[in-house]
C-alpha cells in the first residue's frame, strides 16, 4: 500500500481511468442492464394503467394537461380486473405454469444422469461431451424448432420410419399437440439444466462418496443421502433457468402446439398484435412478472434461511 501511496497520483484521463477503472468495468454492464430492463418495464407498467383507444399509439395518455394548467392523472385499473373476469387469462397462466413445471421436471430427470455422467468422465471425454451439449447453440433456435416439425409431422421422419418398420399402419398425430410442445421444450432447454448441474456435480468431493460407501451405504443409498442433497443448489439453478423462460415461451407453442395449447406467451402476442389492446397486454405481462418474481423471492429467502441456520 505504502508503495502506491508514495507515487504521485497520475493526472488526466489516464490517471482517472486507473483509479476508477475497476468501478467502471463493473458499472457499465450493470447500468446497461438496469436501464434497459427498468425503462421498458416502466413503460409497460404505465401502459397497463391506460385505456385502449383507436389511435397511434393505441392507448390513452396517463398524464394529460387540462386547459388551466392542471395535470390530470388517469389510472385505469380495469385492465387488471379484466384478467380476472375472463377465464381465458387465468387458465392461460395456469396452463403455462403447469407446462413449465412438467417440462422442468422432465428436463431435470433427463439432464441429471447426463450431467452426472459428464462430471464423472475423464477430463478429455468430459470436454467433448460438454462441447456436444453446447453444440446446438451453433444453429438458430428457430431453425431447430422448425426441424422438429419435420421430425414430428404426420409424414415426418418418425412416422415414416415407424410405418416402414411395420410397427404402425396409421401415422401418429404428434404435431399440434402438447406432446410436441413438451418434446421441443425439453430439447431446447436441456443445456440450461445440464450445465448448472454439471458445475455442481463436478465439484462433488469423491471422498464423501467413498466415506458413505465405507460406512455401509451402497451406491443407491449414497446417491440419495449424499449426492442428491449436495446437488440441490445445482438443481435449483437449473430449474430456474428452465422454468422461468418456459412460462413465457411463445415460439414453441406457436409453431408446434395445437389450438388447445394455451400458454400466456401466445395470449400476450394475440393481445398485442391481433386485438391491439396494449393496456390489457401490458397488464398480462406485469402479472406474469409478478407471478414469477414471487416464487423466486420465496425460494431465495428459504435458501438464505437455511444458510443462516448453518452459520
Amino acid at each position, binding site marked *: 500500500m505504502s508503495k502506491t501511496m508514495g507515487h504521485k497520483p497520475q493526472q488526466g484521463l489516464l490517471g482517472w481511468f486507473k483509479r476508477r477503472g475497476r468501478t467502471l468495468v463493473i458499472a457499465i454492464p450493470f447500468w446497461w442492464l438496469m436501464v434497459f430492463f427498468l425503462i421498458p418495464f416502466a413503460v409497460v407498467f404505465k401502459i397497463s394503467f391506460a385505456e385502449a383507444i383507436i389511435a397511434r399509439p393505441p392507448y390513452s395518455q396517463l398524464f394529460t394537461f387540462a386547459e388551466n394548467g392542471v395535470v390530470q392523472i388517469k389510472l385505469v385499473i380495469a385492465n387488471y380486473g379484466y384478467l380476472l373476469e375472463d377465464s381465458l387469462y387465468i387458465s392461460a397462466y395456469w396452463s403455462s405454469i403447469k407446462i413449465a413445471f412438467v417440462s422442468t421436471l422432465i428436463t431435470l430427470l433427463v439432464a441429471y444422469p447426463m450431467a452426472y455422467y459428464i462430471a464423472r468422465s475423464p477430463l478429455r471425454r468430459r470436454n467433448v461431451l460438454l462441447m456436444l451439449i453446447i453444440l446446438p447453440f451453433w444453429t438458430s433456435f428457430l431453425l431447430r424448432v422448425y426441424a422438429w416439425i419435420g421430425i414430428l409431422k404426420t409424414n415426418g421422419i418418425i412416422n415414416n420410419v415407424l410405418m416402414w418398420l411395420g410397427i404402425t399402419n396409421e401415422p401418429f398425430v404428434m404435431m399440434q399437440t402438447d406432446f410436441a410442445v413438451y418434446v421441443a421444450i425439453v430439447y431446447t432447454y436441456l443445456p440450461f439444466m445440464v450445465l448448472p448441474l454439471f458445475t455442481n456435480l463436478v465439484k462433488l468431493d469423491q471422498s464423501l462418496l467413498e*466415506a458413505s460407501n*465405507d460406512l455401509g451405504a*451402497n451406491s443407491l443409498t449414497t446417491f440419495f443421502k449424499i449426492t442428491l442433497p449436495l446437488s440441490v443448489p445445482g438443481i435449483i439453478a437449473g430449474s430456474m433457468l428452465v422454468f422461468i423462460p418456459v412460462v413465457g415461451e411463445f415460439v414453441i407453442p406457436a409453431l408446434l402446439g395445437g389450438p388447445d395449447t394455451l400458454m400466456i406467451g401466445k395470449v400476450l402476442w394475440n393481445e398485442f398484435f391481433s386485438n391491439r389492446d396494449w393496456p390489457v397486454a401490458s397488464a398480462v405481462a406485469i402479472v406474469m412478472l409478478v407471478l414469477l418474481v414471487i416464487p423466486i423471492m420465496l425460494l431465495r429467502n428459504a435458501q438464505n434461511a437455511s444458510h443462516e441456520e448453518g452459520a
Partner: protein
Amino acid sequence: MATNPQSKVSGAIANGAKPWITHDQEPFIKISNLTKKFGDFTAVDNVSLEIYREELFCLLGGSGCGKSTLLRMLAGFEAPTSGKIEIDGQDMSGVAPFDRPTNMMFQSYALFPHMSVEKNVAYGLLRDGVSKNDAYSQVNEMLKLVQLEDFGKRKPDQLSGGQRQRVALARSLIKRPKLLLLDEPLGALDKKLREETQFELINIQESLGVTFIVVTHDQEEAMTLSTRIGVMNEGEIVQVGEPREVYEFPQSRFVADFIGSVNIFEGRVSDDAIDYVRIKSEDANCEIHVSHGVSCTENQKLWFAIRPEKMTVTHKKPHKTKLAKFNWISGIVDEIAYQGNLSVYRIKLESGKVVRITKSNRLRHDEDEITWDDKVYVSWEDTAGVVLTQ
C-alpha cells in the same frame, strides 16, 4: 466394550505383548504378495505383511510410495492387481467397501457438509438398520469419548480443524470396526495440536481395542503412535519393526536416512574378525571400529551410519586407553543452530565431508562453549553406529 466381540483379549498389546516376536497369535490381517498397477506404474509392489489384533501399525513413507494405495486396497476402494488380503481369516477379494469389517478415516475427513455432527456420526449405524434411539445414544457416548458432546447439532463448517478431526474419528469408530484405517489422521492439524492428539488417539485405540493401520509421512508421528512401523519406498515395504528397532537398527541406507537424520560414511572392510569389524573410510578420513561382527567379506564396500546424537564434539582430543586410533576425526565448526533444548553442529571434516551432530544443552552456561570456526574433535563409541550393506 460389551459390543466388541474381541474384548476378551483387549489390552494384550497395550500391556506389552509382542505377538510378532512370540508368534503365539494368528495374525489378524494377512497381506500376501499384494500388487497394484495403474497402467505401467506399479504403486504397490509385491507387499506381504502380517498385522496382529489391536496393533497400531504405521505405514510410513514419502509421497507416492504406495502407502495410501495399500490402505485403499484394505478399505476396498481399489482392487488389487494380484495378491490377497485376509482380515480375521476372511478373504477380502471382491468384497465391497460397505461389506467389509473395516472403516476408514479420510485425510480430508470427508465429513458430510449437509449433515450435523450427530448425523455424520450416526450415518454408519443407521445404514446398518440400527434404530434411531439406539443409534443416537451410541452417538452421544462416542461424542463424549472424543470430547465433543456439546457440538452434536453443529455443522462441520462450524467446527475448528481439531474438532473436525475428532468428528471424523468418532464417525469411523462408531461401528466398532475390526480394523480402522487412518489416512494421515493428524496431517491437517498444527504442530501443538498434533502432539496432543497423538496421545489421545493412542488412548482411544487402547480403550476400544480396535486394530489401527495409520498411513503417515511424518516419522515422528509414526514413532509416537505405533506398535510397529512398516517403512515403504517405491511400492515396497523395505523394513518392518518396532519404532526403536527401525530407528536404531535400520537395515538400509534408505531407512536410516528416512527416519531421523543420520551421518553415513562410505568405506571398505579392512579387518573382519568374529567380534569386531574395522572399516577404512575415506569419507571419514579415519578407521572405524565396530564392536560386533558383521557378515561381510574383506574389502567389501559398505556404509557406516551413525545418528547425530550419538557423536560427541569436544575441543580436546579424545584420549582413550584402548583403541586410541579409532573412531575420532578432527574438523572445523561450520554452522551452529541453537534450538533451546539442543544445539545442532555442522562440522566440516578434513576430508571435506560435513557431519551433523546434536548435543543437548544441559548447562545454562558452558565455560568451554564451542563456537564457529573452532577446531574440534568428533568421536563416538564403538557400539554407536550401524553397518549397512545396502
